[in-house]
């Protein structure tokens, strides 16, 4: 659905159900250069189990009007504006990679709205090397190749996948091609500049779940464990066979973990 935030058109899928702001709402936040389609194997599940679902495209990404936001803090504030515009409440925030930084910041700034936070494949920060940022600006296809290459684990590169006939690697590439050069480069710079992760993590008081991947080369386990150390008693899960793109590479395990956590901590 399209809606207006701060005078600009924004887009979010609602998992195949009309958004009902009276229900607890699960918000899914995508990573750098990606969009709402990243969450297809999680979002629809919740929408058909008495939750409202909101899967926005960040400004400038795919269907949402630009320009892209240039800081994690700005993205968190934009997300708050989205929740005000749509009147959603009792939020469960599910985030991946860059989305986790936004979720940390959002949850620490607006704690009254949030019932649970699920952080997938992230650390406290996401330092990005200069070569990748430069490629995103000057040679987007090379940047996409780097991110898709590092992002997917062996199953992705073997074009295995949970949906018969679908190629996760090709799908990811196609989505990112629609979000270059500005959106991806801006996202990466925003990630690289974000330094408030420790303070934000420590400020979150609601139940938090962390899902890490054993074959993650973008947010390696040690970075994820640093995040865990700074959160207040988080629930930790490690999916050993997955690469960074956990919601796509291990969708059934990921969905089951999200289901158990959200159903018990933010019941519909």
């Amino acid at each position: 659905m399209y809606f207006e935030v701060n005078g600009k058109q924004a887009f979010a899928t609602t998992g195949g159900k009309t958004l009902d702001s009276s229900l607890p709402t699960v918000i899914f936040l995508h990573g750098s250069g990606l969009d709402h389609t990243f969450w297809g194997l999680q979002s629809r599940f919740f929408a058909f189990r008495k939750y409202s679902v909101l899967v926005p495209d960040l400004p400038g990404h795919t269907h949402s009007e630009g320009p892209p936001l240039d800081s994690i803090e700005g993205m968190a504030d934009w997300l708050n504006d989205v929740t005000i515009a749509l009147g959603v409440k009792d939020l469960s925030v599910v985030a991946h990679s860059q989305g986790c930084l936004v979720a940390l910041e959002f949850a620490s700034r607006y704690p009254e709205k949030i019932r649970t936070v699920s952080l997938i494949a992230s650390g406290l920060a996401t330092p990005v090397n200069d070569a990748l940022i430069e490629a995103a600006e000057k040679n987007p296809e090379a940047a996409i190749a780097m991110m898709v290459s590092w992002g997917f684990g062996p199953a992705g590169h073997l074009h295995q996948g949970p949906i018969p006939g679908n190629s996760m690697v090709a799908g990811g590439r196609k989505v990112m091609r629609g979000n270059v050069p500005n959106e991806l480069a801006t996202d990466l710079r925003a990630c690289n500049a974000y330094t408030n992760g420790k303070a934000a993590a420590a400020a979150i008081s609601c139940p938090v779940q962390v899902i890490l991947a054993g074959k993650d080369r973008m947010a390696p386990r040690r970075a994820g464990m640093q995040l865990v150390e700074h959160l207040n008693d988080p629930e930790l899960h490690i999916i050993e066979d997955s690469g960074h793109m956990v919601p796509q590479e291990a969708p059934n395990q990921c969905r089951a973990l999200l289901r158990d956590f959200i159903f018990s901590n933010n019941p519909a």
Partner: protein
Amino acid sequence: MSDFLEFDTLSLHAGQTVDKEFGARAAPIYQTTSYVFPDTDTASSIFNLERGGHAYSRITNPTVGVLEQRIAALEGGSAAVCTASGMAATFVAITAILGQGDHIVASSQMYGGNISLMKNTLPRFGITATFVDPKDIDGFKNAIQDNTRLIYGELIGNPGLDILDLEAIASIGDKHHIPFMVDATFNTPYLCRCFDHGVNITIHSVTKWMGGHGTAIGGVVVDGGNFDWGRTDKYPTITEDYAPFQGINLWEEFGPSAFATRIRAEAMRDIGPSMAPMNAFLLLQGIETLSLRMEKHRTNTEKMLEYLSNHDRVSWVSHPSLPSHSSHELAKKYLPKGAGSIVSFGVKGGREAGKAFIENVELASHLANVGDAKTLIIHPATTTHSRIDADALVAAGITEDMIRLSVGLEDVKDLQADFETGFRAAKKVAGD
């Protein structure tokens, strides 16, 4: 393991998760109609497109799924759907986005089945087509109508072998916001990955070179994932709510694989032109050696072209790799690894001489197929293209004396000896 696996590696491994229970190295044949659900929640999730998985083999099957994901990987597409035949693939791909009152601009030089589908069958469902000479780019532009919803062609036209200028035609599609669908059977992704040149959807009869052994009929539709369906309201089957799946909006939910998902959700469920698991297994065996076979097809074709071009009983030879062919430059651009292994030639003495040639060769098999490991020949005017009218025959570049040769993998020396027998018989009939 290195990232972005290369073509030969993907041909062997893509799409297959090694069986965890028994460790079968080959993709197992899941010869089953249906699948036991662990619980009702999982069952309803699969039916509601909330998760991947198998419910009924008309819609998905694990063996067929390996083939689909392997082909998607080789083509660089976001998703693939296999069907019972190449024609079934063409039909489900077209009807996924076109309906009553819609129009196709198509190349006039295509397999007779494709032409018949668009000329005779689809009009019964209110879908019409305008056929255009594949070399006439302005013709494609001028044929676009307000209700045009698809541009269609074969990269290597059957049997005239004219090459489509993919990028020029793709730009027409892009300008009018119409997807460009290409039957890529004759090239396979080994010779050309059409999505790299702006094509949006490919179709293959995998019966041919992809399978390569003449043992199984099958087709596939590959979604390039590179068409912005949401840019206009021309494609409501993709961009509007789809009632049978609780109003799902495929474009919003599936993005780059929305088109393939529509085929899966509608055609495979409501029409059911499914590929048999055994066929998928046989076709997978073929794809494992695709590049090896295509390379041998190429070298054998080059040798047969030299032989035929210098033969005194051959009136003409046509192949895009020959400088005399009108598509030679396009072949160099789009098919640098070889322009396929179909050769058209005329036997001196016309129709009767051609008939004598066909009936007297022994290694070359007279049958209605191409892309087999074995060499095949046929007379298109009386067989594959016999159901199209005289004007369409001319438009398709088919002459009465034309023989279509699908060069196989035999020793060329033996093939040439076989052809000599045929040419001697043709000479007797010609009486010169």
